[in-house]
């Protein structure tokens, strides 16, 4: 009779701890969310407020790797002087913030709104001069863009890594060149301008904005080419077709031939 209430009390205590922990987590999470939204609302229009918002976001989401003043750490490079265009590319493609350290920063769903990305970019741009986010008229190829010349430039400068049709490819040390199938005009322009990851930098003096637009127009044109054969098999060319024919087609034929030639089952 004396043992029973003791047990109940223990259970109560455990439950209470769980409830308190949940409430605390909820409070912290909600408070964090409210605080983040608050910084978002404060920034509209005012450049210094935008930089302040960007700094707040930076301290929350980036400083653990890039350092409190973006000076870089053993885990991540300095962001002083990389410019707004680099921030816009890395964050708008979801590459930053990183989910985990690794050879490659994979593209994923962006974690920040466009307004937040611009605030982050404004903050990083305030640290040192670097390429600005290109304007729409700078990266949008005109209707009469020189597709053929864009293709020539693409094959000389880009195709070794990104493949002739922009499908991407493998690089050394576990890295890979991403496919260009989903990149926006602005992201392609920013990538050429800033050279993300191991990609070389193509400054506006080396490839003028017009030549960059020709390259973007070529990528868009290649992307728009339909696949009349049904399946494109990665659009990597005849190699994949041969691989499928030999590995899958031949394997199926071999199994069928074995079935045709097998001895008949006998009744016991």
């Amino acid at each position, binding site marked *: 009779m004396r043992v029973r209430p003791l047990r109940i009390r223990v259970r109560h205590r455990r439950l209470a701890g769980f409830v308190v922990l949940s409430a605390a987590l909820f409070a912290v999470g909600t408070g964090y969310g409210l605080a983040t939204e608050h910084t978002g609302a404060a920034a509209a229009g005012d450049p210094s407020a935008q930089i302040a918002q960007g700094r707040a976001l930076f301290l929350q989401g980036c400083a653990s790797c890039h350092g409190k003043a973006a000076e870089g750490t053993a885990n991540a490079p300095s962001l002083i002087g990389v410019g707004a265009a680099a921030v816009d590319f890395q964050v708008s493609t979801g590459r930053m913030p990183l989910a985990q350290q690794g050879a490659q920063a994979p593209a994923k769903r962006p974690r920040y709104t466009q307004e937040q990305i611009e605030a982050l970019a404004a903050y990083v741009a305030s640290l040192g001069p670097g390429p600005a986010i290109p304007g729409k008229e700078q990266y949008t190829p005109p209707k009469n863009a020189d597709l053929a010349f864009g293709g020539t430039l693409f094959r000389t400068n880009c195709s*070794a890594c990104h493949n002739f049709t922009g499908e991407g490819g493998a690089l*050394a040390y576990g890295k890979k060149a991403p496919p260009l199938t989903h990149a926006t005009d602005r992201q392609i322009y920013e990538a050429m301008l800033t050279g993300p990851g191991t990609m*070389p930098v193509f400054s506006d003096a080396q490839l003028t904005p017009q030549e960059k637009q020709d390259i973007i127009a070529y990528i868009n044109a290649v992307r728009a080419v*339909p696949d009349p054969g*049904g399946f494109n098999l990665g659009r990597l060319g005849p190699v994949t077709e041969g691989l499928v024919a030999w590995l899958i087609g031949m394997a199926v034929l071999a199994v069928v031939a074995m079935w045709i030639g097998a001895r*008949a089952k*006998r*009744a016991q």
Partner: protein
Amino acid sequence: MSEHHGLQQPTPARSVRPPVIERVVRPQDADPRRAKRAERLVALSFLVSAIGTAGFIAAYVAFIPHGPGSAGESNRWLGASLGVALAGLAFGIIGWVRWLMPAHETVEERHGLASPQDDVSAAARIVVTGVRETGLPRRSLLKRTLGLAVGLLALPPIVMLRDLGPLPRTGLRTTPWTKGSLLYNAETGRPVKLGDLEVGGFTTVLPKPREELTEEELAKSAVVLIRLRPGTNKPLPGRENWAYQDHVAYSKICTHVGCPLTLYEKQVQQLLCPCHQSTFDVPDGAAVVFGPAARRLPQLPISVHLDTGEFYATAGFDEPVGPSFWERG
């Protein structure tokens, strides 16, 4: 043993024995219900085939391609329905043979492969008679003139080897790069100036605008100009003044089998050949760090005109560019 025996004494009646036939009793032969089930399975697969054919006609009508863009969908459905039609038919026929048609295993013995002795002797007689009737052993004039004619016929293919020439002479050792050549961007044709390349930038340059080079000259004169991270370049002894403010220029042609080295990784500052993955460490004099290439990339010494800011070569290449050849030494 038996074939050898057959060759000596051809006796067709003995060598081909009647086939041995063994009837096999399968579960379907023993149990009429299992035979019925097999029959239904075969019929079902014929029905599936019929549905596939109907689907093909339906797909042909339903998906009318209006150009290459919509042809893909049409082709997918046509291919899938025709595949079902043919696969159903094939499965049904094979199942019919395997499960329902009478099963018996047959052993057929082959007769000896050699021809009967009579045929061999007859053929030998024909050859001997033929040679005797040509009179070759006696008519030595004919024998010699025939030998001359046939022997001369072997010469034309050898003479035609002339078309492999002309010999390259010095072509393998020289390039159009000379002292004072400007570095023209390979595509845009603009001379590259100091400041055109950002740190981590690279570009392909030629000694002249592209139109002024022959195909042969173009093939050997491609050079990559790379701007390294400040202070990372480690020039080889005697090449201390071959770079200009972290800009270095190397032949773009892989020393393995001559593919263009366009794959430059900015972080590790290595050039990688997409053909066989030869990797060259650019700051270390383009030394081979991986892959089948055996030699560094030839380096082009460069400098900058102080008035115009344009890059120029202070000399041509001091060694042949591209892959090895026998006489290279």
